[in-house]
């Protein structure tokens, strides 16, 4: 109270009452007020600046666990189309590298830039009652095309946390649907409710610095020079993180090593 | 050209002043002009409304602060202040139980110069005190003695009126303070002998055996409040008394009071 009065008096003496900015300094606009919300922020990212690279391989210690045969009796078609299919949870190459692992950059890239999604869509194929690829990465607002190469009913049921769930039924062979995810989020599963064994994993990013260890167990990401936190993710063995610094024109080496935890 | 020159010279401040003072308007308003000489000073008082309050000349001892404490004057001035601020407040105040309180809140929160309410309230308190002190002074100087007996009486009534004015005004904000102060105050009326239903002798006033004349709904307090408790009617009555009734009476009596001061030989002093 009194302090206010005193202030009043001070004003009275220095007749500076009307129209003064009145201590507005304590207020300020929030960060990013300039951007119209979801609209692309800042200048666009130029892929040409990705002069450096990170590469390495996902090593697996110990001998790989035996993958079980899938019981496909529920659908006669799958019985012969997918005969002999095993689960793809842990696939190790002959030179002891772990396949189907995601590798992506968590931090270190310039978040001020706007990263345009690639024009060409990701393709998720259903062949022999399994998803191909089994693990893949994509960018937000990038198209993803679901293709059914089987002559049976499949449905693509994605279980993201942030994005809307997708559940599309594809009854006809060769049918294609295109959709996309609008929010970046960590790895989640895509399943077929008709064939419970079918599953695939993906993650949605707001930047292009991500890939998988594919079939070889090796990976390469081309990035602008800088220091990055690199993350590897595996559906069974989970996450591993590493840090790396690269200069222009160089390629830094960063490998991860998984192993079957003692049961 | 020459006329223009003349005009310009006549525009010099002093000349202008004289011109104005010569003008009929000026002289019709200020008969005497600037009272520089004692004569003019007297004429000012004679031709002036102040004449109602003051004589041309006053006894030197009479107007010494240490004799009068200026309490009477202060009281009168406070009355004027209260009239003025009260007038302003009346523009914003509705004497109904729905709006009385919120209107006061509006005065506090949003009405420009709502501070008039403060001035009004504090002025009222100050006036009560100044009236008392005025009385003390008059008594201590024995100024009620002949020929001023009557004026003392008028003064006493004015004192009572001042208290009543303050009392009636006390209710208007319609907050707990107001309501219960008035409740306590008006409960006394309940005990008026014969006129209040809890007063001595009230239950003697009956028609025949068992028709009481004085009941809780027909006694002094009811007349005062317009109800059995302090409610809408009381608010309205007090409002009217506070804004119209009492001020009129007080104003009239003040006129008498001041007039009698003059008639009874101005401010008192040793004979």
């Amino acid at each position, binding site marked *: 109270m009194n302090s206010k009065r005193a202030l009043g008096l001070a004003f009275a003496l220095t007749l500076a009452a009307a129209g003064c900015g009145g201590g507005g300094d304590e207020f300020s606009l929030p960060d990013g007020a300039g951007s119209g919300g979801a609209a692309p922020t800042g200048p666009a990212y130029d892929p040409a600046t990705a002069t450096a690279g990170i590469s390495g391989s996902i090593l697996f210690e110990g001998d790989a666990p035996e993958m079980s045969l899938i019981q496909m009796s529920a659908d006669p078609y799958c019985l012969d189309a997918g005969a002999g299919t095993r689960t793809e949870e842990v696939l190790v190459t002959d030179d002891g590298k772990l396949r189907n692992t995601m590798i992506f950059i968590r931090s270190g890239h310039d978040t001020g830039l706007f990263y345009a999604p690639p024009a060409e869509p990701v393709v998720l194929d259903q062949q022999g009652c399994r998803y191909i690829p089994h693990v893949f990465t994509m960018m937000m607002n990038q198209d993803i095309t679901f293709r059914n190469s089987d002559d049976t009913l499949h449905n693509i049921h994605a279980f993201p946390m942030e994005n809307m769930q997708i*559940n599309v039924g594809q009854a006809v062979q060769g049918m294609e649907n295109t959709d996309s995810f609008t929010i970046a989020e960590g790895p989640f599963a895509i399943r077929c409710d008709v064939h419970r064994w079918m599953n695939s994993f993906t993650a949605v990013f707001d930047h292009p610095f991500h890939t998988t260890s594919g079939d070889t167990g090796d990976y390469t990401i081309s990035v602008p020079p800088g220091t990055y936190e690199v993350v590897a993710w595996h559906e069974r063995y989970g996450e591993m993180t590493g840090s790396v610094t690269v200069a222009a024109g160089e390629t830094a080496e960063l490998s991860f090593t998984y192993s079957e935890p003692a049961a | 050209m020459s006329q223009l020159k003349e005009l310009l010279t006549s525009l010099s401040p002093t000349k202008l002043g004289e011109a104005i003072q010569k003008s009929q308007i000026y002289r019709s308003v200020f008969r005497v002009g600037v009272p520089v000489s004692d004569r003019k000073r007297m004429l000012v008082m004679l031709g002036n409304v102040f004449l109602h309050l003051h004589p041309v000349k006053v006894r030197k001892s009479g107007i010494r602060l240490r004799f009068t404490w200026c309490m009477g004057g202060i009281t009168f001035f406070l009355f004027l202040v209260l009239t003025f601020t009260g007038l302003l407040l009346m523009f914003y105040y509705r004497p109904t139980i729905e709006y009385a309180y919120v209107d006061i809140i509006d005065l506090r929160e949003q009405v420009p110069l709502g501070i008039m309410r403060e001035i009004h309230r504090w002025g009222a308190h100050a006036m009560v005190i100044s009236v008392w002190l005025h009385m003390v002074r008059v008594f201590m100087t024995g100024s009620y003695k002949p020929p001023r007996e009557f004026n003392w009486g008028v003064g006493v009534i004015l004192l009572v009126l001042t208290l009543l004015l303050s009392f009636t005004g006390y209710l208007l904000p319609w907050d707990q303070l107001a309501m219960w102060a008035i409740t306590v105050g008006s409960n006394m009326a309940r005990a008026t002998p014969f006129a209040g239903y809890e007063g001595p002798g009230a239950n003697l006033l009956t028609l025949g055996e068992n028709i009481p004349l004085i009941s809780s709904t027909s006694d002094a307090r009811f007349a005062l409040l317009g109800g059995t408790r302090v409610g809408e009617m009381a608010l309205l009555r007090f409002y009217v008394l506070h804004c119209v009734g009492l001020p009129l009476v007080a104003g009239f009596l003040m006129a008498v009071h001041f007039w009698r001061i003059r008639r009874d030989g101005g401010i008192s002093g040793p004979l």
Partner: protein
Amino acid sequence: MSSETPNGGVPKPAIPPPAKKDPALNISQRGDRLYDDNGLHKWFAISSLLLFVFTVWMIVDDYNRDWRRYQRAFTRLSVQQTELDIAAAEGAIDRTAGEAILGELAAAQGDIDGNAATIAEIEGRLNALNDEFYSTNQAYLFARAEYDVERYDYEETLANDPGNAEPLRVAAENRLAEINENLEAVERLQIQIDDTTAELEVYIGERERLEADFLALRAEFDRLGGVRSTLDPGLIRTSIRNAPILDFMNPSETVNQIQLQNLHYDAPFLQVPRVDRCTTCHLGINQEALGEWPQPFTAHPRLDVFVGADSPHPMDGFGCTTCHAGLDRAVEFSRAGHVPENEEQQADWENRFDWYLDHFLETPMLPMDRIEASCLKCHTGAGDVPEAPALNMGRDLIRTYGCFGCHNMPGYEDVRRVGPDLTTIGSKLDEEWVKKWLADPRAFKSEARMPKFWFNSNNGGAEFEARNNAEITAITEFLFSRSQDNPLAAAAPAGGDAARGQALVESVGCLGCHAVGPIPEDPARTQHRRRFGYNLASQGSKTSEDWLYNWVRDPRAVWHDTNMPTLRLTDAEAADVAAYLVSLTNPEWETEAFPELDEAALDEVTLEFLRTGSTGIQAQEALAAMSLEEKIMTTGEGLIARYGCFGCHVIEGFETAQPIGTELTQPGSKLLNQFDFGFLDIEHTRTEWYAAKMADPRIFDVDRVKRPEELLRMPDFGFDETEVGAIVMILTGLVKDQVTPDMRNVLTADIEAGRGLVAQRNCRGCHEIEGAGGDIRSTIDDEGLWPPLLNTQGAKTQPLWLHSFLQEPGEETLRPWLSARMPTFYLDQAEATVLGKYFSAIDDAPYPFIDTAIATTDESLTAGRELFELAQCNLCHPAGDQIPDRDAADLAPDLALAAERLRPEWVEDWILDPQAIAPGTRMPAFYIDGVTQLPDILDDDTPRQLEAFRDHLFLTIGNGQRVADN
């Protein structure tokens, strides 16, 4: 005194000379003055300077209110924001297009210059035409005016003086003719003008179009520019329009207010319309874009539910203080009644806003954790309030613990007493158990609902021990003496297997309501710490296997009024379950024994009752005359009346007794001076009092000297902090602050009744209804085995089917392979109807009469079959006897039942977009944005395909009724 002539103003000398006679004239010569002028001047100078300063101070102090500061800051921020937007807009302008246009524009201008002569000529004509049009039109209008007059004259004369009417009529008609001519002329001119304009258009139209396009390009940019300049017309102008006195015209800084005629400020015995001035400082409250802005400009976090113009609680209709409380008209921080959430916020406020708590403010703002209380003002129904978990929990607790048994509370008038019926206590329990139970229920079961009457803070001392035991014994013995026999239908067959029993309990759905042993905290559940049903732990130490057997087999047979449904267990299953339950014992409970009755203590108590209505001496004599038996009976009966046991239990002889507790109809408005804070050192507020009372109902006896029968009687329910909070929320929420009926949320009686029943029977224990519930799911890992969501249940199922299913769920089983099953709730016709209406009402689906007859064509039917095969529905859906070969969890509901169960139109909606109805459902969508994924059938026409699906489902698979398609 009339020494002057009024006119002229020439003063005659007022006092005639010679001056000698007047001593006053000598004063100056004697230099006789009271005060010397300079002294007075000094005084005057100083005082008037002071006066000036103080006057300015007054004006400034009065003018310089906090809200102005906030509004200035807000304007400043808005300006900054706009400038950012302007920059963005400028960047967004398509410059290339702009230059292109400018180019064309130059070209167009070129053409125009080329045809300057022609254009000039046309324009000339146009002007001439316009002039002519003006005069002609005027003639026409005047003629009409004249005509109206003449017509009136004619009519008037015709009425009063028919003889002379004729000439007037003629005049009028001539005038009419004239009018028509004029009109024709006008129209003709109009046509000519249009033609000429078109002619002109040919030459100059291009330019105008281009100019328009160009402006369109930069429209947004220009608009923002305008916004900017209105926001901030420059310091000088702003200062002038907001300067004191001047600001009466159109200040930019002004007090905003929302007037709410039908929501009232809670003044005693009055209803004063609310005038919310909150938006004077909270300027961005309804602007979504301002979510990130600093307080007080932040937008309301839930604009979708509150404040937002198209939310259920729009700002203009509800204002702010209706929910947040506080002083609606205040524009100063503390006076508005802001209440800090915690100490550090308080400290922060104190140094930033000189915050203080206004003790004269009856309704200070509710802190965020208690804001839900306000919902009760309008959401008066028994059902849950969406998005108010704490509030619902409070209601739930009140319902579970039956506060209304002792306290009159609005909304619980016709709810059953929460405790079991004690008229047959003898056939279920033994006295020893009951005594120990009364002494400390929670010793037997951690979350017992039976509150603790004895050994509490005010009667826990050693001096009370004998007395307490005596009271307990008296009550118990009284109850058993009154207890009637309640024969059990059958004895438990031998060979019940506990292991199997346990398996059953965990699979058939008991866990929807019950728990076994300690319960993990699980906020997701609707019951937060306890369960709807009793905890099954240590049942073995409580009652007999026979009783349990009969109970699980058919609860109603044991107690006609129970809420416990039957799960239609076979006798064998029942036996197993009973065996399991009886095996759950509480060893340390069984070890200790209840102390013997101390007769002295008993006498003391008995005396208290004898003393009422008679003198102490008479009482003593009466007591002496009594046998122990009589003493116990008198005391027992008296104590039951004193403690109001009948509030929760049916006790013979107390059926009509009145509740003993304080009325709780408006506890939120109870006056502070009506609370007895005793000598307890807590803040004197309603909330604090209720909180203390809930945490320990006897707390206010602290330091009080009372006779035993005067002690506080409310028992201890052992609520934890969260629960106390929830209940206090309800209590403080029940205020007298009247809300006019039209502002109450208008739920149909159907929904209210339905929600009530859903709560009473705990449907949410298994099902998700109105987006809440499904507790049991946390005990079932495989989501395939979860009970169904009941969203859109009303639109989904046919009333008749639902009705019969609710009454007899056992009749048909949708998913026979599941072990969890829908229990039989013994719903009577009325109750089943209530639920039926409720479900239909929330989906506003027609009820009860619907038309399930299918009008279709053979083509559609065949198409339906094809679709069916194409979509391979039978991969997951069984249809009657043909069940897909896959594990139970993967199976979908049986389609054979669809025809009599589902509403045809719902089936179409469902197939069109399953995710929309049941998010996360495993039913795939065959229509993406309404485009079919099932090609080459019925020309890929979605609606027809959907119908075909429906037809196949209802007519081919099911035996629905078909009517010819016309």
